[in-house]
């Protein structure tokens, strides 16, 4: 079937949010990891910050990213009328 302009827009919005969240993921993982030594000179909640991020901070960011994505996309589905029949 032919996709409508609305469908295309839905997919574009999905790609945009995916890209934004991937950038945050990349910062919280690889940039944080690369600069862990430098971050360790800052103290946060009694932890050296580099250690804290790798042990806990980045993990919390991951959980939030996934939670946000699920919420955002489940709303976007409805807005663009591509949502499923309710099975709840």
């Amino acid at each position: 079937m032919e996709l409508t302009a609305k469908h295309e827009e839905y997919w574009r919005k999905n790609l945009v949010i995916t890209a934004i969240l991937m950038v945050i993921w990349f910062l919280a993982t690889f940039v944080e990891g690369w600069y862990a030594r430098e971050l360790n000179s800052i103290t946060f909640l009694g932890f050296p910050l580099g250690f804290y991020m790798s042990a806990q901070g980045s993990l919390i960011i991951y959980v939030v990213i996934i939670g946000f994505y699920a919420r955002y996309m489940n709303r976007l589905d409805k807005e663009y009328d591509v949502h499923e029949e309710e099975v709840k």
Partner: protein
Amino acid sequence: MSQATFSQSAFTQQLKKYYFFYTGGFLAFIILLAIAEQLGLSRQYIGYTFLVATIGLYAMIGIMSRTAEVAEYYVAGRRVPAFFNGMATGADWMSAASFIGMAGTLYLTGFDGLAFVMGWTGGYVLVALFLAPYLRKFGQFTIPDFLGARYGGNIPRTIGVFCAVLASFVYVVAQIYGVGLITSRFTGLEFGIGVFVGLGGILVCSFLGGMRAVTWTQVAQYIILIIAYLTPVIWLGIKHTGIPVPQIAYGPVLQKVTDLEKKLTADPKEQEVRKIFKDRADAANAALKDPGKAYAEGKAAIEKNAADLKAANAPADKVAAAEKAVAAYPKDVDAAKEQWGKEKGLAARAAPPRPHATPFPGKDEAAQNTARLNFLGIVFCMMFGTAALPHILMRYYTTPSVTEARRSVFWSLFFIFLLYFTAPCLAVLAKYEVYSGLVGSAFAELPRWAAAWATVDPTLLNITDINKDGIVQLAEIVIGGDLIVLMTPEIAGLPYVVSGLVAAGGLAAALSTADGLLLTIANALSHDVYYKMIDPHASTKRRVSVSKALLLVVALVAAYVTSLKPGNILFLVGAAFSIAASSFFPALVLGVFWKRANKYGAIAGMLVGLGVCLYYMAVTYPFLRDMIGITKPIAEYMWFGLNPISAGVFGLPLGMLTIIIVSLLTPAPDKETQELVEHVRYPNLRGDTVVSEAA
């Protein structure tokens, strides 16, 4: 529709009720056992009770969920609510390596071990963003199914089956090994029998009810394993931080550990012990340069010593000791060489304590940068491997909808997070106990837990008075990583019943992962090979029977391989991740996000990814090098100094690049394939003609 609406929500309500009572019942069971312990129930019986009760419980769930229906057997009827699928994924995901091994790795390697903590959680971001919702919409049974449908033909499917089986098999061997270890340790059964008992527990579940039984058992196993992991840590945490959430408050304890490290590095007694180790290692190195001469000289020296003592009428015990030394001297040069080889290894114990909170310690800037690269390499491979391991991806076929699949990834990571943010905390608390409680105590009066473990199992805890001062120095202690989780209940001063609980938790972690993996292998073989390629007209009943038969065969083969005790488990697990990341990830993700990706690209890409990954492991991992007979130094083969565990760092990008280049050089996929891509991209494309949800 209203009927379905009612039943799904009623089903969820019912599940909540069941598992609520189940959790309550389990807690009551622990309390009863604790009372029985006070009344004098022996430790061995507590161990047996836990083993029998939990395996019996899993068996009961397995029997209650038995099924012969295809959709029930392969994907649990596709009606597992997000919350419960999250728990099941958590148990599926967290293996014996996570439960028992993780805190130990962190204890031993400090910051650098956090690569696994980050990698094994951050990978779920990739699962959520790139895979779970699309695979759910695709709605088939296995991961090779997707490759087969998206790229067409049997070749992509076959490669998919091969990679799925390879990665899962390597992983399942490590799990069965863990099961055998835990069962034998806590019940005193032999390792081989432990493997067998564990295998029974695994099979009774997956064999009877496939994915359906495995799912509901995994939820039950998650509840046990998380209670088992958190209870002792919270107790220990209250002791050290004063609040029941030590995970957020152990910063000051980490600071104390860092201070103690500095103190212990400078301590003269510690330096004395380390010097002894260094001297012994140096002496061994010197002896190894000319073994024949060193052997003759050493022998002459101790014989002379004994003779001199005798001649000088020295006290009897000194003479006896000198004669014992003569008797204990290696009988020939080869035996002596072996002994020196071991002594040489003592150089590792001559090093000062590794700073726990410091990232990438190393002797100079270059060594530190290589350590950093390896840290990021492991993070990379563990993350992309997570997002490509078939037994995890398969779990997202079991939710009722795409919406639920997205929520389900959130719950999965949430439940995994509960354990993974506790492990680093546990490692720090345990280290503080060892540095402050064990180090500095007299050998005559060791803390109770240390005395107990040192006698039970010297491979886990070995303390020897090297400098004969009667006081424990840190350098005199050797700790096996697995000890950290096992000893926590005792350090926290909890009754033995909690130790039994921890063992039950470890068992639950190993069993649940093994279940998921065995099912993945059997399904790939029965569904993708037998049904899709050999006999497409097989009746549904026959398909399920074939799958069950294969499950038995695979389980037995895996148990056989396990009984051979194939080496380093962490490497095996790491290898599984690198293999999955290199072979699956590019083909799966480009399959959804790039319509132009075609069959030829996918075939070439998967082969290149897998090939590069296996090649790098073969030339840099000592065990494999010996097998092929490579003798040139490892350094000549290493790229950027990366360890073999991170082979996926090269395999994945090269595989992806290959798919893109080959696809662009060959014709675009047909219209039907393009429509399939559109079909998976939208949760509900009205007017869509692609048929989904195979029966």
